[in-house]
């Protein structure tokens, strides 16, 4: 007889993570799908949100800043503010760059954030990270399963709110101009400063959403460390967006669920097959599998499950001259 409680517990865990990822991917979709900004530093902004919320709400940590013990909601808002601020600074400096330079720059930003997280012990707890990140209303709701379910409800509601807000936003006049700027680089140039401000706004809003996701993650797991925000996270999030279909908010959510499901399934499978002493190595195979999946999707169906047709190639016009036609049919 299957362990129902265990199954429910597992399902809740899975859905919380999937929903948190979905929120982050929605932020990424705003930047890439609707604005054409190539942000390869997603993990960094997620980290900023997570750490900010942990520091604002956590208990006193010996030898470092933080431990303000503020309510969790304040932490979440603070997370959004911090990642928004970081996005503003980065965006002002980097958003005028070509798309590929933006990719390298945002990648570098994430590396810097990770370095700070790893080394600035008085600020971030260094390699040990931050423990005892408070779980909201943990006293009020007894029992693990019940609390997890309540948290899932909260996250799901937030996901719904973010989704609805973004859908409104992209259909608004602001969103329409944004789309026009994305699709026609020349029109964008004629708009000049205005196009830059639009891009910056989209970048900041997107990063704020990512920061929120980071905070939600931190308060669910209760413990964050620098290795939670490695490039592999950025890669997972991008894979979710591409699999689901960029340019489409439902696609973003679907991609998050599908890829997370594949990730946990492959993890579980490897845990079953691989003997205990090789478990750590098996984890690397998980990454290989997901990596191969991303490459396969890009080769076979770049628009993903729900994506717009040729969204990816539409951006190519503004990146570099179209590569020449091959001399022979493949």
């Amino acid at each position, binding site marked *: 007889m299957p362990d129902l409680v265990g199954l429910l517990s597992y399902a809740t865990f899975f859905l919380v993570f999937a929903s948190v990822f979905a929120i982050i991917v929605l932020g990424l979709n705003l930047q890439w799908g609707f604005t054409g900004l190539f942000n390869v530093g997603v993990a960094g902004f997620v980290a900023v949100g997570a750490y900010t919320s942990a520091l604002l709400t956590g208990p006193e940590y010996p030898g470092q800043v933080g431990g303000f013990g503020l309510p969790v909601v304040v932490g979440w808002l603070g997370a959004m503010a911090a990642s928004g601020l970081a996005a503003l600074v980065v965006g002002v400096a980097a958003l005028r760059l070509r798309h590929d330079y933006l990719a390298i720059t945002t990648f570098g930003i994430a590396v810097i954030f990770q370095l700070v997280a790893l080394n600035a012990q008085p600020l971030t707890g260094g390699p040990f990270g931050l423990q005892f990140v408070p779980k909201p209303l943990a006293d009020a709701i007894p029992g693990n399963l019940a609390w997890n379910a309540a948290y899932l409800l909260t996250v799901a509601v937030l996901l719904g709110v973010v989704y609805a807000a973004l859908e409104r936003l992209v259909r608004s006049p602001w969103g329409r101009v944004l789309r026009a700027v994305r699709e026609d680089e020349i029109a964008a140039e004629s708009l000049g400063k205005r196009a830059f401000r639009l891009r910056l706004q989209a970048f900041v809003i997107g990063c704020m959403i990512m920061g929120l996701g980071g905070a939600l993650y931190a308060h669910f797991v209760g413990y964050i460390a620098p290795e939670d925000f490695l490039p592999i996270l950025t890669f997972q999030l991008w894979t979710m967006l591409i699999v689901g279909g960029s340019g489409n908010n439902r696609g973003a959510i679907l991609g998050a669920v599908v890829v997370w499901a594949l990730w946990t399934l492959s993890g579980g499978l490897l845990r079953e097959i691989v003997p205990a002493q090789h478990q750590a190595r098996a984890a690397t195979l998980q990454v290989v599998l997901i990596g191969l999946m991303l490459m396969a999707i890009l080769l076979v169906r770049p628009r993903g499950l729900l994506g717009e047709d040729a969204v990816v190639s539409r951006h190519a016009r503004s990146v570099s001259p179209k590569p*020449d*036609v*091959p*001399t*022979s*049919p493949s």
Partner: protein
Amino acid sequence: MTAALRVEALEAGYEPGLPIVRGASLTVAAGEIFAVLGPNGAGKSTLIKAVAGLVPVFAGRVALLGRDITGRAAHRLAHEGLGFVPQTENVFVNLTVADNLDLAASILKVPRRQRLDALYALFPDLARQRKLLAGRLSGGQRQMLAVARALVGAPKVLILDEPSAGLSPKLVGLVFEKLADVRTGGVTIVLVEQNVKAALAIADRAAVLVEGRERIVGTGPDLARDPQVAALYLGHRGGGA
């Protein structure tokens, strides 16, 4: 006498299921100027690009001076006596005039001094502007450089894609005059043109392409007088595949 260029029932395009050239046939005699005309979307550019090895060929045959070159890669054709002048981006803008020509000479392994002296003699304006960056040249001079570059290898056949594009009528005249000089030197010329009047003024023979296939073929003067030609253009003014 072997035709300089013979195209037989050519089908070509960018996507395998969507041929833009649909069974076109042409014969260009050695030493003549041949114009390929037609409304927008008729497949003129695609046709010559397929001949030049830049666009995939699905069916049919192309022969250069009697040798089958169907589907052969563009870079090989450059070594085998075919010169091609693209419509846009037809010079290396970051290189000087001299470097543009030197590059071609190195790649095609021709005697540099001899070939370039001959070209500078044919294009005295370019000779004067040798050290200038190609990107700084005026539109007309740039076109001249593009043609000169294609002639470095002493090709037997020179193909040009809309050489008059973007040029004022006076410049068009100058360029076409130059092409006539080139032909006098023994080079067969095939040009795709939108500017029907100018093209037919220098063409010995021409073909009008419609929807991927040739409809009318004849001598330049004949086609210039032929009301069908005008009708084809007017009839397809808004459309064309």
